[in-house]
């Protein structure tokens, strides 16, 4: 985007083990060999960047940290150059909550996201996918990230929240400002949070007179154990969370899956011949290309997998790296679409398990099924370039495909 000032430059990484940086272009482009190198060095590595940050490199170390809310706080969940002050204005419960506040905030959000609730959304999702495909199938080529995978989760969450699907580009702008530009430029982060609060504030105001059957009204009507309504800042925080967490995550997962299928005709053909295998394949694609890296802040000194961990540092909690640990997953570096045993951590482990995991799974399954029904043959366009997002959520942001059989 042209209105963006250049982010603070990070020196290139020459020593990954002692100076890792998840915003380095090499990591963005191909993180897998880097994770292997780090894992071979130690179950926990450290960098002085980002004001001090650890990274667990094994599945076991990631599980230990995810389950240890005593030493690791969720009050900051993105590793950035700065540590913005923690206020109720930028909190997003329950993802930024620790026990005991976490459980009631989480329980509030769970009922609208059960597998049964997602089944009701499925017909609308199939229609959205087909509307999107109608828009480009005749062209013979498409940027599948910009015109397909991006709009599926945006429209789904807009539909659930009860806000216009036509505001999609506005939501995408905020997410870019928070998750990518905000890593190095705090003003972008604060601006986006402010704009989102104003946007949702207006929607809340409108529902005070005329309640609607959507997630905004659901949160406004929610009551805590004492029968009191939520503070407006809590409602706003949760709405911001649902919008942010629900979009570029699934956008990335669908995009990475299509990227894999474009390069792997044998998997494509198998999924077309055996459509009942799709749910198993979705789990494997989630494992191999997990989009979401979370963070924690060390609040009390402890030991993880034998490595001392000191308070005041952040932790880059890389579920994607955990999911590539060969000790946990045989052939971890291969996509095995019929993998039977798959305890992948793409949606996190422990109390912060992604609220939207059932939604994301449904969206991925529907998006891939509808795509393969209408576009059984496609491949990367050699004239184009695939680009990947930087930082906390990894997925293709440009995905140029040629549609149809190769000549």
């Amino acid at each position, binding site marked *: 985007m042209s209105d963006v000032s250049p982010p603070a430059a990070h020196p290139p990484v020459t020593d990954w083990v002692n100076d890792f940086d998840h915003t380095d272009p090499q990591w963005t482009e191909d993180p897998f060999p880097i994770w292997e190198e780090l894992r071979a060095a130690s179950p926990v590595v450290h960098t002085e960047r980002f004001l001090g940050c650890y990274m667990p490199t094994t599945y076991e170390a990631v599980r230990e940290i995810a389950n240890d809310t005593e030493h690791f706080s969720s009050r900051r969940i993105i590793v950035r150059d700065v540590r913005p002050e923690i206020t109720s204005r930028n909190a997003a419960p329950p993802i930024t909550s620790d026990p005991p506040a976490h459980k009631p905030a989480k*329980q509030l959000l*769970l*009922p609208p*996201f*059960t*597998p*049964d609730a997602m089944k009701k959304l499925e017909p609308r999702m199939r229609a959205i996918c087909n509307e999107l495909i109608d828009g480009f199938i005749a062209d013979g080529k498409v940027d599948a990230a910009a015109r397909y995978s991006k709009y599926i989760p945006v429209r789904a969450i807009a539909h659930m929240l009860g806000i216009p699907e036509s505001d999609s580009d506005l939501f995408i702008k905020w997410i870019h400002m928070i998750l990518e530009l905000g890593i190095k430029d705090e003003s972008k982060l604060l601006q986006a949070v402010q704009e989102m609060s104003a946007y949702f504030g207006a929607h809340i105001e409108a529902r005070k007179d005329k309640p609607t059957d959507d997630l905004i009204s659901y949160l406004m009507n929610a009551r805590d154990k004492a029968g009191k309504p939520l503070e407006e800042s809590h409602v706003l925080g949760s709405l911001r969370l649902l919008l942010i967490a629900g979009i570029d995550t699934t956008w990335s997962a669908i995009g990475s899956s299509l990227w894999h299928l474009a390069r792997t005709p044998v998997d494509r053909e198998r999924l077309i011949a055996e459509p009942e295998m799709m*749910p198993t394949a979705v*789990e494997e694609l989630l494992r191999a290309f997990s989009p979401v890296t979370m963070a924690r802040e060390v609040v009390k000194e402890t030991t993880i997998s034998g490595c001392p961990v000191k308070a005041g540092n952040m932790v880059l909690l890389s579920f994607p790296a955990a999911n590539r640990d060969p000790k946990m997953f045989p052939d971890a570096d291969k996509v095995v679409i019929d993998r*039977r*045993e*798959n*305890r*992948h*951590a793409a*949606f996190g*482990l*422990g*109390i912060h*398990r992604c609220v939207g*995991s*059932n939604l994301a799974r449904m969206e991925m399954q529907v998006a891939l099924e509808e795509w393969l029904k209408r576009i059984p043959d496609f491949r990367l366009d050699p004239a184009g370039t695939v680009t990947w997002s930087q930082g906390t959520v990894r997925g293709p942001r440009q995905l140029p495909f040629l549609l149809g059989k190769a000549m």
Partner: protein
Amino acid sequence: MTERLRVHVDPDKCQGHARCKALAPELFELDEYGNAHEAGDGTVPPGLEDKAWLAKSNCPEIAIDVIEE
């Protein structure tokens, strides 16, 4: 010899990934929050043994026990 299997979900470990319900819908149920528990007393009807083991080996929280009786 007929060996009976029983499944059990540890409610303190379950975080509602719902993998068991997807893989073995006959053996597990979800509550209003999407957290799982075994259907009935957890007895695995004959023919569903494979699904019981599959559910166990796909639970990210290691919350499922398959008990051989």
